[in-house]
């Protein structure tokens, strides 16, 4: 199987699959550069351009903000507000940069369906990577902040620490976290992509203006909610490791 998930072809004019563009051999495996890579590169270019523009604008920032500076300050203030409200004063300054970055990245990826790209988050590779980053962060902060005794007690949680019968179930629960985080994001965006592809593929003759309503729901609303949920859940899991302080 050298095809990624959902990389085969379906009906003739319904197209929501990931297409391979270039293939190359590495260690005996065929690896594909797919449309997901191209879309993710475009999203990153947009974000890098935006960051450079923001940096140049903020270097000559004025006391009373106007125009672009207003937008930037509003964005950073709102995101900081959410992060501080969820994580508390101790943990929030350490993670504010990371969560702002990942929020903007997932959001722009999700709404990139509006400009005709296939959203990169509708590829399980992207979301699994995001989920694994969250998993690593959760457990690194756990081992940094909690004493080993308490980690062991948490792992045997409903039963006392000297009776680790519940340990395997808690381990499975921990492993399920990145899987459910990534699958939730992936399946939501994928379902939106499939719906839009079906509308445009099967109703192509009468799909004139009204699919805009569906775009507002599937791309904007669903994308924003799922971005929020992904960041919120990761923040909650991480801030659990700061409770004793």
């Amino acid at each position, binding site marked *: 199987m050298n095809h990624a998930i959902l990389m085969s072809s379906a009906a003739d004019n319904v197209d929501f699959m990931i297409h391979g563009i270039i293939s190359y051999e590495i260690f005996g495996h065929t690896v594909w550069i797919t449309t997901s890579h191209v879309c993710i590169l475009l999203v990153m270019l947009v974000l890098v351009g935006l960051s450079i523009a923001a940096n140049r604008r903020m270097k000559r920032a004025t006391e009373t903000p106007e125009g672009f500076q207003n937008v930037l300050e509003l964005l950073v203030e709102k995101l900081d507000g959410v992060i501080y409200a969820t994580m508390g004063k101790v943990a929030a300054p350490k993670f504010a940069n990371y969560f702002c970055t990942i929020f903007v990245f997932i959001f722009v990826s999700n709404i990139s369906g509006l400009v005709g790209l296939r959203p990169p988050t509708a590829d399980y590779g992207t979301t699994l990577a995001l989920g694994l980053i969250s998993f690593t962060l959760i457990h690194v902060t756990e081992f940094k902040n909690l004493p080993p005794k308490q980690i062991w007690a948490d792992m045997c949680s409903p039963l006392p620490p000297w009776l680790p019968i519940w340990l395997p179930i808690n381990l499975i629960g921990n492993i399920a976290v990145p899987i459910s985080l990534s699958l939730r994001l992936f399946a939501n965006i994928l*379902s939106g992509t499939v719906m839009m592809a079906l509308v445009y593929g099967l109703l192509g003759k009468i799909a004139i203006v009204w699919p805009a309503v569906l775009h507002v729901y599937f791309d904007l609303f669903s994308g924003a909610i799922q971005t929020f949920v992904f960041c919120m859940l990761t923040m909650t899991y991480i801030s659990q490791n700061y409770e004793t302080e």
Partner: protein
Amino acid sequence: MNITGEDLILACSAIGAGLALIAGIGPGIGQGIAAGHAAAAVGRNPGAKSDITSTMLLGQAVAETTGLYGLLIGMILLFVKPLT
């Protein structure tokens, strides 16, 4: 009309995809309950409307996950065809 083994598996995959989407019932009920309680909460305390709305949307998005797993199984059965 000859039905080969592959045709049979494809047909059964389609039926299985339809059955997998029954999973949509659960999140529907759950989201309805959440929205109902949120409406009641706004009725009791209209000042906290924005907090209630964001909490409700967060909970609903999490409750939606099981339905999306069903959808994923259905899509994999239909398009990836793992059994043939």
